[in-house]
């Protein structure tokens, strides 16, 4: 009995000692605090506000209001459209650019990469103000052409976010595979479609995510460049919040979260199944 207790005591101290020792996982502690305070708590608050009324009692008013307002659907559709267009244009422009930048034969100067990312060094509000003046000078003012003006501004702002992930993936492209395909008689087009694109798929996916989501929720760029003619979903949320309609604003924020979540889930899924086919995970 005594021996058993002393053994237990010993093992307790031993365990305590081993626990008290500094462990690597404690390094995550500061971030865990940050995560709880600024990510999880606000998220819970959003959910709480989305499903309560102005007096704080649980209610589905905000949900009903959202699903019965055609204008909110319309704005959501416009935001989706804007997000998709910007993503497509960014990929079309960014993909070849990243390919050239990553190819050491074509680009012997690393400074070029910096040049592509440099616009990010300036605050985007200031950049957007300058873009507005520029578009006015070349006759593409948002007053007459709200869509082209806003798309140009969006692409300008988010292109670096497309190029960077693509560039890092392309640096890791397995050139020998491409050469082998070419040696075995594949045309450059076939090499591209069947080798380069699958290899760079993770880059394409993370680039799309990094563009699509912020564009959906941004509103400063569309407000400034379309001269207030294109209203995005983020703008609607802000409008409700600034009029103390916390519940409906929160519900719309929740909708946005769900859309982002779904789009992420979908792309991850596509990526995983693709990785399985290729028999290895790049992502």
């Amino acid at each position: 009995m005594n021996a058993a207790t002393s053994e237990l005591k010993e093992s307790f101290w031993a365990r305590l000692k081993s626990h008290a020792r500094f462990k690597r996982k404690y390094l995550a502690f500061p971030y865990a605090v940050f995560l709880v305070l600024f990510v999880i708590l606000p998220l819970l608050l959003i959910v709480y506000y989305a499903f309560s009324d102005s007096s704080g009692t649980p209610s589905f008013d905000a949900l009903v209001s959202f699903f019965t307002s055609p204008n909110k659907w319309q704005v959501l559709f416009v935001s989706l459209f804007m997000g998709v267009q910007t993503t497509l244009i960014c990929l079309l422009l960014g993909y070849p650019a990243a390919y050239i930048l990553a190819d050491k034969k074509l680009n012997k100067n690393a400074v070029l990469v910096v040049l592509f990312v440099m616009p990010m060094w300036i605050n985007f509000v200031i950049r957007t103000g300058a873009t507005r003046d520029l578009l006015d000078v070349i006759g593409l003012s948002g007053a007459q052409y709200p869509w082209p003006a806003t798309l140009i501004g969006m692409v300008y702002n988010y292109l670096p976010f497309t190029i960077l992930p693509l560039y890092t993936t392309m640096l890791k492209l397995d050139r020998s595979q491409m050469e082998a395909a070419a040696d075995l008689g594949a045309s450059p087009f076939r090499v591209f479609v069947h080798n380069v694109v699958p290899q760079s798929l993770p880059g394409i996916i993370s680039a799309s995510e990094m563009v699509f989501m912020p564009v959906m929720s941004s509103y400063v760029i569309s407000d400034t460049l379309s001269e207030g003619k294109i209203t995005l979903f983020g703008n609607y949320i802000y409008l409700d919040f600034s009029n103390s309609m916390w519940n409906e604003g929160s519900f719309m924020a929740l909708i946005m979260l769900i859309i982002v979540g779904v789009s992420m889930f979908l792309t991850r899924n596509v990526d995983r199944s693709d990785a399985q086919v290729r028999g290895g995970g790049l992502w």
Partner: protein
Amino acid sequence: MAKLTRILALPLVVLLTSAGSGSEAVKALAAGEPMILRVWNWEDYIGVVEVDGDEIPLDEYFEEYVKEVDGVDIDVIYETFDTNETMLSQLQSGAATYDLICPSDYAIQKMMSQGLLQPFALGEEERKALYGDTYGNWSNNYDLYASPYLKNWFDTISASVPGEDGTNSTHTLSEYARGYMWGTLGITYNPEYKGYIQAGMRPEDVMVQLSDWNALWDQTAFWGTFQIKDSMRDTFSIGLMRTFDRAFEFLLELYRAGTITQEKYTDAVNIIFNCINHVDSFNALMAELNTYLDHSETPFETDYTIDSIIAVTQSDLEVLRGNSYGLETDSGKTDIQTGTRSGICLAWSGDAIYSMDTAEEETDIELYYSVPSTGGNIWFDGWVIPKNAENVEYANKFIDFLCDPEIAAYNMDYIGYTPFIAGDDIVEKAKEWYDEKTWAIEEDPTLAETVTDWDAYAEEEGWMRVDLSYFFEGSLSEGEDAIFYTTEIQPVTGKNLKGEDETVYVGRQFLAQYPTIGLPDNLDIIPGLAVMEDYGNNNEYVLRMWENVKASGVLEPWIIVLFCLEIVLAIGIASYFIVRKQLSLHERKKRRAAK
């Protein structure tokens, strides 16, 4: 987990104990330290005073002033906010405690009805009780110098304030607020904008047409050249001017013909302006207007509901948004100075003065300001004391200080908006800026002696006589008057929207600074001005309307077609790959089976 809490607990204990001792230390310090006055104001909304060659903001100057007058140290903590809404939500959440805040008229109403405010010390007895020994050092400058015209406005705006016992009682703004700045919402425009010249319009035509709110709905020359405010309340007020244009027009006619008194006219304009809150009295007014109509004319509708008013105004605003160059939050006042971007922007009078001044200096463009004859919005910003204020005494004293006409003149000089305060210093400053007579005497001092009849002299010189007594009445010492002579306000004849010749009076900075009264016809702005009250519970209706307006007009057919095409394409590509994958799997299986 237990360990985690212990790890957490230790620093927490340290923190708590140190915080406890800290606050005591603060308390101990406070005994000998200066008092604190916390002031919350709009950005760029307080003047500077020059002392020994240094420019000192008035809030800092107040510290010196208090030291001199009361012999105590006070520390003014001055902070700023950018919209009434952000200010309100911060205050409601309890995150902010201040002794003085400067919201706009409707926000004051809202704060009153939410029980967030306490009244100012009214009357000498209350002031004596509050100020104690220092009572003799301060004078009630607001009562002495605030313009009677504006004080009268504050008496007419009221809110239902919740009392301690749970019952509500109605109080006016005069009890709970001290006016600071005021102005109108009007149209700043550039009569020589290239688009108007290309459309074959003379500057005079532009001037005449822009003294009518309907110009903004005109589909010809002004189309796509004006910016409207991305602000629900301001744009809604413009929408109402259009929706009920016929009623406004008719009322003006009745007033000019002398059928109704000025008081009745102003009341009626205010009822239409606030029809959302007073649907019944609005319908009654429409019914009353029908009694003045001839039998041949179509009567005004008398069965409006909030929904029907909102619906009509919404469709008017959707058209307005489509016609406009765009919506702006702050860029309008600089865009119009470029001379190429926009020809018109809707502006508060103070912003309009800023645009006109800088355009004149920098781009040599003469901008004008108009409040159309059928009426418009008058607004006020005023100081209030929140219920949880800690230094009520010096909050009251700060108002006494700001309402000193000399200090108010510094404010007017620096900010450009028009202060609530009248008095000698203000009238002198205004004359220094706008009065031809003052300029003439400055150039040739002998004129002051030789000219006896200034009215006759002015007529010879082509100056317009403007009487601002409505504003300065009762605040001026003997020998001062509120008669101005100006060349800025001029009659102009041009073609109106119907293509007929019409004469209107146009003005610039002077008109924006002090709306006029007593001029022939069109510039008689004052009686047609209306305050837009807090919408209260009806805010949601207006917000829904504004959301609809902002969503309108974007979804063109090509967008839907393009989006559908993209979706079809995406599905096509995806199914191609899926089918191919399935096929290859199938083939592999077959090959394996063959082995």
